């Protein structure tokens, strides 16, 4: 009987061994002191120890130190109270590779009462690939948000160009007409006619029509329900930079972040501030791309009244003339037409009680755009400053 029993045990063990080695998950068996009795092939790959090295050691070997400390306590607690924290439940835990890499694991634990005492069987699944997928999904979502923000600005630009076209056309034609008549009268030595005054009146009306369109646009920017909150400017800017870096993956321009260690609190609509940053960044990246050094520097600073975000590029800077017209609605030095973006950005900044300023650089210095926002003041947080 003994011999038969031994053989049956041997067959059963062989089956168990092959099961362990073909399993897609890591399998570990420990005794009630935490000593590892089984450590399968997948575990060897997951943790970087051979079965020979692992078996006999405490299971804390494959846990990050902060977990291994509490593991012994959990086990003795379970032995004392029978309260199940993980057995039969399963949860996400952290494992540690021999090289110190900590990674997420899904752990399910079963319990077996054997002649040698209680043993626990742990099944481990590496969560890193799932994490990578989740990360990718959230990155893509971020990209969509980013694109939506940028295209909203572009669409607004196109809509405005279309709407402004008619009054500007009429205005210019009226002025051309009246200029001709004035010249003709002048040549004949006659006084200006009523008809000319009439045309001048009409041109004033057209100029007003154009300015109403601009006012309507300004209201769109300013009267959007503000979602003002006290935010750390560093976080707001960081998020915008992350979005932008993701979208520009593979780009050759380096984004340098020069941030301090202390939070910089401002009262702002984070989304609108990010719109400004993305807009400045897009301009800067486009300029830097053409430059030799190819970097964009984003720095954040503050004094006791104001917070600053500066975006500098490695480009050649721009001339004083261009600097003067930069914020004019449709002026741009590039084909993509970011002049409107700058004008909107400045409107948003001013609506926050701040401003957007440009330092043209030149003489080997790139241009710097600085967004200024008032610092959050705890005293008048409830003050109706934003009216």
């Amino acid at each position, binding site marked *: 009987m003994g011999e038969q029993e031994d053989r049956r045990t041997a067959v059963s063990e062989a089956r168990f061994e092959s099961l362990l080695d073909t399993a897609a998950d890591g399998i570990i068996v420990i005794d009630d002191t935490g000593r590892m009795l089984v450590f399968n092939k997948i575990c060897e790959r997951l943790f970087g120890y051979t079965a020979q090295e692992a078996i006999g050691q405490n299971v804390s070997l494959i846990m990050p130190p902060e977990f291994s400390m509490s593991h012994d306590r959990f086990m003795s607690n379970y032995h004392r109270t029978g309260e199940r924290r993980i057995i039969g439940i399963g949860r996400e835990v952290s494992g540690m590779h021999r090289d110190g890499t900590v990674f997420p694991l899904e752990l399910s634990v079963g319990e077996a009462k054997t002649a040698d005492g209680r043993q626990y069987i742990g099944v481990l699944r590496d969560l890193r690939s799932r994490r990578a997928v989740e990360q990718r999904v959230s990155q893509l979502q971020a990209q969509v948000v980013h694109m939506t923000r940028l295209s909203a600005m572009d669409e607004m630009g196109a809509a405005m160009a279309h709407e402004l*076209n008619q009054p500007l*056309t*009429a205005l*210019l*034609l009226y002025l*051309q007409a009246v200029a001709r008549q004035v010249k003709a009268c002048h040549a004949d030595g006659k006084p200006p006619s009523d008809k000319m005054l009439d045309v001048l009146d*009409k041109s004033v009306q057209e100029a007003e029509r154009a300015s109403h369109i601009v006012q309507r646009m300004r209201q769109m920017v300013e009267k959007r329900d503000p979602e003002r909150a006290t935010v750390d400017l560093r976080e707001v800017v960081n998020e915008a930079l992350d979005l932008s870096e993701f979208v520009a993956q593979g780009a050759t321009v380096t984004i340098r972040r020069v941030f301090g260690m202390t939070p910089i609190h401002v009262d702002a609509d984070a989304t609108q501030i990010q719109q400004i940053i993305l807009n400045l960044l897009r301009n800067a990246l486009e300029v830097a791309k053409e430059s030799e050094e190819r970097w964009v520097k984003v720095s954040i600073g503050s004094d006791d009244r104001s917070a600053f975000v500066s975006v500098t590029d490695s480009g050649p800077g721009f001339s004083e003339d261009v600097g003067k017209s930069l914020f004019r609605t449709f002026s741009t030095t590039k084909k993509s037409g970011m002049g409107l973006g700058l004008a909107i950005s400045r409107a948003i900044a001013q609506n926050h009680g701040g401003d957007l300023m440009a330092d043209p650089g030149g003489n080997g210095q790139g241009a710097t755009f600085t967004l200024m926002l008032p610092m959050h003041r705890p005293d008048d947080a409830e003050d109706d400053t934003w009216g």
Partner: protein
Amino acid sequence: MYIIVEDDPSVADALESLLSGAGLPVRVFASAEELIHSAALTADDTMIVDLGLPGMSGGELVRHLEKAGANPKVIAISGKSSRTIARETEGLSDLKILRKPPSADWLEAITA
């Protein structure tokens, strides 16, 4: 005769002021349909037509006139992008295009 086909009343009026101020004979129509119903054009006429008319577009009007055998001198005006303009005027020959807003003296451009 100078024929203006433009749906924006201010642009039409301004254009009329410019041309009539120079002593030129002008008629204004707010749509292609209005022009077709009330006037016949000859090769002596100059038609200034907005490409983006509601209803029958400026491009369609020019094609319609070509088919009807009327051959006025045509000047198209448009505030759209050059790519859109190219698409809208595809297949139309002998067409001068003026873009809104004006960047030069339109009277000179129209009477040249």
